[in-house]
């Protein structure tokens, strides 16, 4: 295995070199060289990663864990050490392949996409920095290294969202993303401090193999004394909050749609395929630890399913194609989250773990990465072609961009869960897992979400590619090679990934040490679920076709949000049924449900944020006004402060 260790260093070093060369040594005028270096180095990294994981899976060690290398990094005390290393297990091997491969593809795409940009070298160096930090995150054998790279990933995301810093929208979006995820990360950090103090280790292995019976003695948390097991429960919630923010679950989702201000390749790699799944990855990585606490799992499930449904409803109303995809990403992340949470099963009053949810969730990370990355790249191509983000200015692009059109069809079918496309297999397992866990409400909502997903994805598909052109730009659209090649490459795993890898995932992707029994065999198999899911998805597609692509469909009316008169005119109108459809869709779904949700989003979530900002601002003013500049007042504060602390200081006098 020595060979592998040496090779594995290169997976990290190559993107790092690419970052350093592009960032430090290359002049900004060498644009083509920058792209070339990035593509070559990241391509080699992807090749090594694929080879490494092939050897790993073929060697018979899988699904066992192995540490290829580990060095001491920080010594906090003789017992508590933070190390830096490379952990190889099925989860990290899969992520290594996904990240390096997608990074390679996106780098190729960026050559075409960023051709006209002035600071291409900066872009490629940041992109490689991101790849490097993301790789460091997924192979971390301990919490400390994970947090380290977790933040580094956040910084590279901040740099890339704000890449076009001339745009005020991009700057405020990058700031919002950074600060909001930092807010969540502060809980994560707190959870790390708490857990590592109680367990005496940062190691995932120690966290994942502990048994609560060893932690019954009391610990004082400053205000209350609870048993160490309960304190670990608190820390599991705190650690989950870190993933909550990073994966943009409700209500911390607001940064993700705004992050679409960044260049599209960035949205494609960071804000759909890799970085945002870090939260799901965190839960998966620590799954045996989380599974000790069924309440934490329930929380994960609730947050996940709510986000899945909520984001899917919003996605139906968006016109900006990147935002549609962003909300779709949120919804799919919700899917992965709730799959992890729905693993807890009650059997005869005792909690057990159904590992199907775990492997389904990771399977969905895998399939989703490819088709969502591809869909974003397609969106980028469309935007590049018509110079506009809105569906208003697209339409009829299918004939102009045949390759993109075919790929988009594959992507939309995959995300909708139509067999035999990749999304079908993973989504299907998630649904079965939810059903087996007897989480019937969650199962129902998930089915509904799956229908909505098919609807909004095909709404996007039909409006962009079918019908008549609605913009003058569409007249001279053509596909460029470097932007179409990655899309075609990604279409292959999007099409076949599910079918080919299903067995691998079911065989190897088990969470490892689980304190309670694995119960998937004892549960009834639900053969009807795949059919139900596919039928619901087909209904969604059919509805989208009826509204947006049927011959004589009034696309203009369907897109028009301002025209309210239809509601009053619908009886007199010729297309009687049409009007019912439109009226129903617009007045009920768009204006009713979606408006309520949007209201909730704007006023409740936004209001809470605004409220706390307001309070902090006022308090800040108070501090500044106290700074009057009068020396007698200042000396007074000394005396008053002394008296204040006399009474507030908890002194035993």
């Amino acid at each position, binding site marked *: 295995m020595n060979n592998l260790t040496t090779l594995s260093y290169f997976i990290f070093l190559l993107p790092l070199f690419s970052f350093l060369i592009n960032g430090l040594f290359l002049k900004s005028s060498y644009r083509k060289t920058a792209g070339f270096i990035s593509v070559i180095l990241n391509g080699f990294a992807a090749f090594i990663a694929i080879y490494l994981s092939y050897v790993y899976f073929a060697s018979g060690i899988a699904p066992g864990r192995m540490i290829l290398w580990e060095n001491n990094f920080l010594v906090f005390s003789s017992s508590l050490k933070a190390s830096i290393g490379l952990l190889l297990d099925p989860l990290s091997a899969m992520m290594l392949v996904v990240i390096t491969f997608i990074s390679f593809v996106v780098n190729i795409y960026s050559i075409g996409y960023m051709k006209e940009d002035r600071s291409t070298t900066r872009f490629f160096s940041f992109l490689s920095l991101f790849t490097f930090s993301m790789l460091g995150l997924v192979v971390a054998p301990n919490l400390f290294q994970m947090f380290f790279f977790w933040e580094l990933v956040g910084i590279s995301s901040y740099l890339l969202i704000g890449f076009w810093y001339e745009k005020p929208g991009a700057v405020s979006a990058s700031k919002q993303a950074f600060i909001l995820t930092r807010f969540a990360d502060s809980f994560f950090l707190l959870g790390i401090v708490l857990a590592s103090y109680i367990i005496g280790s940062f190691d995932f292995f120690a966290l994942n193999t502990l048994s609560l019976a060893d932690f019954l003695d009391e610990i004082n948390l400053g205000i209350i004394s609870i048993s160490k097991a309960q304190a670990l429960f608190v820390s599991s919630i705190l650690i989950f909050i870190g993933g909550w923010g990073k994966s943009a679950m409700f209500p911390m989702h607001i940064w993700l749609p705004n992050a679409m201000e960044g260049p599209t390749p960035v949205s494609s790699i960071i804000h759909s395929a890799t970085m945002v799944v870090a939260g799901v990855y965190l839960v998966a990585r620590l799954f045996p630890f989380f599974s000790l606490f069924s309440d934490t799992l329930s929380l994960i499930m609730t947050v996940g399913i709510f986000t899945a449904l909520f984001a899917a409803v919003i996605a139906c109303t968006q016109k900006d194609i990147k935002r549609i995809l962003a909300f779709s990403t949120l919804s799919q992340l919700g899917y992965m989250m709730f799959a992890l949470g729905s693993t807890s099963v009650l059997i005869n009053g005792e909690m057990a773990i159904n590992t199907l949810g775990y492997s389904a969730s990771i399977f969905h990370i895998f399939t989703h990465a490819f088709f969502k990355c591809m869909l974003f790249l397609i969106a980028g191509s469309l935007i590049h072609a018509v110079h506009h983000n809105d569906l208003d200015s697209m339409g009829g692009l299918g004939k102009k961009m045949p390759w993109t059109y075919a790929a988009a069809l594959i992507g939309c079918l995959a995300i909708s869960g139509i067999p035999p496309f990749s999304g079908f297999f993973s989504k299907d397992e998630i649904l079965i897992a939810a059903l087996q866990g007897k989480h019937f409400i969650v199962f129902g909502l998930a089915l509904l979400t799956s229908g909505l997903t098919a609807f909004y994805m095909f709404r996007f598909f039909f409006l962009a590619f079918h019908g008549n052109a609605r913009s003058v730009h569409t007249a001279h659209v053509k596909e460029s090679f470097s932007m179409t090649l990655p899309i075609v490459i990604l279409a292959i795993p999007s099409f076949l990934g599910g079918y080919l890898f299903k067995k691998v995932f079911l065989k190897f992707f088990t969470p490892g040490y689980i304190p309670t029994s694995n119960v998937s065999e004892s549960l009834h198999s639900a053969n009807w679920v795949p059919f139900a899911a596919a039928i619901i998805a087909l209904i969604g597609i059919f509805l989208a076709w009826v509204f947006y692509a049927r011959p004589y469909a009034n696309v203009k009316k369907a897109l028009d949000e301002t025209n309210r008169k239809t509601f009053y005119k619908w009886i007199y109108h010729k297309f009687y049924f049409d009007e019912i459809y439109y009226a129903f869709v617009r007045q009920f779904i768009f204006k009713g449900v979606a408006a309520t949700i949007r209201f909730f989003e704007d006023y409740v979530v936004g209001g809470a944020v605004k409220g706390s900002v307001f309070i*902090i601002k006022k308090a*800040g003013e108070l501090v500044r006004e106290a700074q009057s500049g009068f020396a007698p007042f200042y000396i007074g504060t000394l005396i008053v402060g002394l008296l204040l602390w006399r009474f507030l200081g908890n002194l035993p006098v």
Partner: protein
Amino acid sequence: MIHFLIPDLLLLILPFLIVVSRIFSSKRSLIPWYVAFLGLITIFVLLNCITVGETQLFLSNWKVDRFGILMREFLVLAALMGISFSKDYFNHTSDFTPRMHQLSEFMGTVIMATFGGVVVISASDLLTFFIGLELATIPMYALTAWNKKDSEGSEAATKYILMGSVATAFELFGFSYLYGFSGSMHFTDIAASVLINPSSPLLWISVLFLLSGIGFKLTLFPFHTWAPDVYEGAPTPVTAILSVTSKAVAISFVTVLVFGPLNGVKEQMAPFLALLAGTTLFVGNLGALKQYKLRRFMAYSSISQAGYLLIALLGPYEFALSSIVYYLFIYAFSNFLTFFIFGVIERNRPETFDSLRGLSKESPILAVALVIALFSLAGIPPLAGFLGKFQLFYSAAQNHHYVLITFAILNNVLALYYYIQLIKSAWVEPADPTAYRLIVNLRQKVWIIILSVAILLGAILPFLNDNIFKIINY
């Protein structure tokens, strides 16, 4: 063998050497500058050569221990950065009028204050302790008023000295009660009496006054009111020195006190310390939110950093001390880096956020260094500031102060918000075409690069941090 005293003696002699060399050289001669610079470097090297053994005592009231050696290294390094930063303010500009005069006396005063800090760390009785503190503070008053023609500087110095005197009175009052309570000036005797009678009112009145008095120097809430005015009014190099050296002396005063004579009542003091730390870092963060003047902003930022430093004291001895030393080093690097950048900017521009506009285009090195410094102050990995903060929190976690840690970590988000405002000015906002060009000389460039690299590598190469931990522990 008293070889461990050599660096201290050299540090004491150095100010006089500088002033004497000034007398025997011409007016524009660089000899005093070289004497100071090389002298400090020599002392730093000597300090590193001292083998750290057991605690050494000289004449029963001069103590040299491992923490003391590390803090000496820190103080000497801070003085070195301080005088390097000041040098440009004494140089002749194109119109032959330097912004400040009498470099050698200035450097002598700075080094005298540094020696005061060394006395505080070495003290093992109340009298030495007090003399050290005053020796570290009085030169600061003089430095604040260094520009005699500058009325703002004089106003700042007046406020500083008035409030400083009240704070000194508090401290003396506390000392007198401590003496009355234990009947001895020596720390070991006081510690013994504290153990015997831990709930005596005399003791607690003295604790209250001592912490309030040092709260002034450490800029704890509500004794921080002088800091924004003085930081803004004093000459910029003095602000930098105040924010690092003065703060380091004050925190080592509290450390010596808490882990020395008052060790027996540390547990009972913890809620009070936690309250001081929490309010201070919150008020500092709130104050920094809407500032537009660079140094006033740094004043509030350093107030909140003092609150963070205090958190470490809640932990056990070895964690508290190693995290404080590490944090002070990183804080000094980040703070001086920021001040070096501000120094370049305020040379011919007003000292506001607006002067930073277009920095990324005009001088990418400065803009990148500013990001490194501010992100380190905000505690973002992989910069050293994160590691420093993590260790502070970890130290407090040893004694279960999770409420305070939660509060401090959430405050970090607030801090990030205002540091990003500054970065936004430097990176996003378009340049002001009428602003004067920035001039970066070689010394500034070298220091900016050294400090940026130190902050970057301080976390990635962990030997610095490991060494501190090992020195304190083994």
